């Protein structure tokens, strides 16, 4: 997660209008999931790859590694679709085990392929958004589309304090390590537990201090901040609209 956060600040597409990126990512994701079309998923995967790696200049190696993270989940879940155990063999393949067969039908293989490819395409949409848009910009969009304010404010604070608390945690861990706190399994478990306990107390203290600091600047229960927005370029809007229309047409035509 911290890798993604670092990368999005250096992305070349960072200053592209966040609403355009958001709309593109969400609509494309929806079309991929709805259509389950192999052709469309392949197109979306390629386009997102070009956008993120080519335009956004996210290193390909990192992008590939991130894309492979959900692979295990996707393969596990499609396994159930491909593999059947039955007494009579199906049309795609059949491996006899005693009087039974481990078998699968052509239709189920096709279905699995669709599932895998469209899942990857959907994941690539979300990666496109998170690798090229900063969290604050995403929160800005959420506020604009009238997400509940409390949720947006909570996300803003949580996002900020993830980093403060991980820093605190790693500082505590370093100091524990320097006193041999992690030399074997037993000490590791104990040190980790103590670290977690201290972290919890620190978090409480921090939240009190933060509340004081916010109150001293006139906090009244609503976090008002300026939203930074980068004006959308006409070309970007036109391209996104055309692409989404093409996907919509693809959906309607029920491309394979």
């Amino acid at each position, binding site marked *: 997660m911290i890798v993604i*956060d*670092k990368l999005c*600040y250096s992305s070349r597409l960072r200053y592209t209008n966040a609403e355009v990126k958001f709309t593109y990512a969400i609509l494309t994701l929806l079309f991929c999931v709805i259509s389950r079309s192999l052709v469309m998923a392949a197109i979306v995967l390629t386009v997102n790859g070009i956008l993120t790696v080519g335009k956004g200049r996210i290193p390909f190696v990192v992008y590939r590694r991130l894309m492979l993270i959900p692979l295990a989940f996707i393969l596990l879940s499609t396994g159930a679709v491909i593999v059947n155990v039955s007494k009579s063999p199906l049309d795609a393949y059949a491996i006899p085990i005693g009087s039974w067969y481990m078998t699968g039908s052509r239709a189920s293989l096709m279905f699995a392929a669709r599932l895998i490819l469209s899942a990857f395409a959907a994941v690539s949409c979300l990666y496109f958004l998170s690798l090229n848009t*900063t*969290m*604050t910009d995403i929160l800005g969009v959420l506020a604009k589309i009238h997400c509940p304010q409390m949720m947006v404010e909570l996300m*803003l*604070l949580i*996002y*900020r304090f993830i*980093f*403060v608390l991980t*820093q605190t945690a790693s500082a505590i861990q370093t100091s524990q390590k320097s006193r041999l706190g992690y030399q074997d399994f037993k000490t590791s478990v104990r040190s980790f537990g103590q670290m977690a306990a201290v972290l919890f107390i620190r978090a409480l203290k*921090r939240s009190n*201090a*933060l509340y*004081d*600091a*916010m*109150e*001293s*600047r*006139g*906090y*009244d229960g609503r*976090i*008002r*901040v*300026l*939203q*930074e927005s980068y004006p959308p370029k006409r070309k970007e809007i036109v391209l996104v609209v055309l692409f989404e229309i093409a996907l919509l047409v693809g959906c309607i035509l029920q491309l394979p």
Partner: protein
Amino acid sequence: MSEMILQAENICFSYEEDGRRALDNVNLSIKRGSKVAFMGANGSGKSTFFLCLNGIHRPDSGTLYLNGKPFDYSKKGLLDIRRRVGIVFQDPDNQLFSASVSQEISFGILNLGVPEGRAKEEVDGVIERLTITPFRDKPTHALSGGQKKQVSIADILVMHPDVIILDEPASALDPKHTRIVNELVNQLSQEGITILMATHDIDYACAWADEIVLMHDGNVLKQGTPAEVCRDTDALEKTNLEEPMAVRIYRKLCAKGVLGPAEDMPVSMKELEQSIDKIGKDRKSE
């Protein structure tokens, strides 16, 4: 308008959690436009007193005055106090709540009800002024300690306060950022902003401040000009402070007969240098 911008009269304050009496009958006055250094051991009540001055803590007894008027703890009154008195907290990580620098700075001014357009101009102005521009597009968690400090000062400055309270601004700063902060503080003070600063550095306090307040066990032990405070060796000892370097050298020079006991004891290196410079001149005029 009254000459005193802030006054405290018999302020007592205890923390609810542990019942510890953090402030015990504090009396003091702060002159408009002055530079006041607050010194005292950790836990002597400096930070608690600062939080009282900003209306975060409400004293159990006693009265605080802003511009001669008692603090008004109504919602509107509090907003006014917080606009006029700003606190830069010691640990920027306890103050910065947003990952975006400009959002962070915009918080205070928007709370004052300033329209977005003007708030944006003000935020951009303060970013430029505090030389935050090179890192304004970085997330706050990627900033260095010194940069975070700059942002936390901008947080307050954007609200155009009359009084700025800095709680140990130089703690954990490298020499470069300490200099940046000190220069900025001098600039602000030249603009007429009253500055209260908690510090443990007596040499800095003596060179910088118009007045020093020594705090001890929730009490004001001594308030006066640096020279007055330095002469009160008992008070210094009680607050675990050593005499400033300049005073120690001055005493040695007096003992050796190089300097005669002057009516104004030099408390900063600059004053000491001036006293030493005078030696030659006196001889020439003789």
